């Protein structure tokens, strides 16, 4: 059972565009929603994370939008650059009493073209 569904599988945008990656979760006990960025041959690196008590969080060019009632959250990358080309993973976990074991989405390969 896939508990976190991520789309699209791949995405191509022009430099300066705003790619949007979407995730949906099933387990209402999840209370922590991070996004990770992964380059080839490297481990995932934490970009930004949100808790369900807020609807939006911004850190630099990265924004998470969170819709608790719809059980959906998304990542927006403002003013995208070729260096943002990577695979992005959403994840979810139950921190309180859950050990923060991450359940990952299937990943989105982003390419930012000049």
């Amino acid at each position, binding site marked *: 059972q896939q508990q976190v569904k991520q789309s699209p599988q791949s995405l191509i945008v022009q430099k300066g565009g705003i790619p949007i990656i979407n995730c949906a979760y099933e387990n209402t006990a999840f209370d922590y929603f*991070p996004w*990770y960025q992964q380059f080839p041959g490297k*481990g995932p690196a934490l970009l930004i994370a949100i808790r369900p008590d807020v609807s939006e969080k911004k850190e630099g060019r990265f924004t998470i939008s969170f819709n608790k009632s719809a059980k959906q959250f998304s990542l927006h990358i403002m003013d995208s650059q070729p260096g943002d080309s990577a695979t992005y*993973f959403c*994840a979810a976990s139950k921190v309180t009493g859950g*050990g*923060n*074991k991450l*359940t990952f989405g299937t*990943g989105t390969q982003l390419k930012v073209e000049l």
Partner: protein
Amino acid sequence: GAGVSQSPSNKVTEKGKDVELRCDPISGHTALYWYRQSLGQGLEFLIYFQGNSAPDKSGLPSDRFSAERTGGSVSTLTIQRTQQEDSAVYLCASSVGQGPQHFGDGTRLSIL
């Protein structure tokens, strides 16, 4: 080093052999996680250590997989009698308590 260190970075072995993968977490991090990243299954949780508590082994796919964490620091993931479906990148992450997890670059395991 400042980050999570994993060794070896690559491991090629024959089917049926045992392998040991090592993880050095960030100093002071109390929690340590193992995940597996494969083409067919994506990123999946394997096992979690938190301080002196009993590890959470709920993600281990079979009894051929085991892990230990010595002295609350270094961890070793052992796969016995390896099978071709064990081929994957094995990732280790550490955190302060249940805070943000920081990943190493993984061990790429190939079973011939």
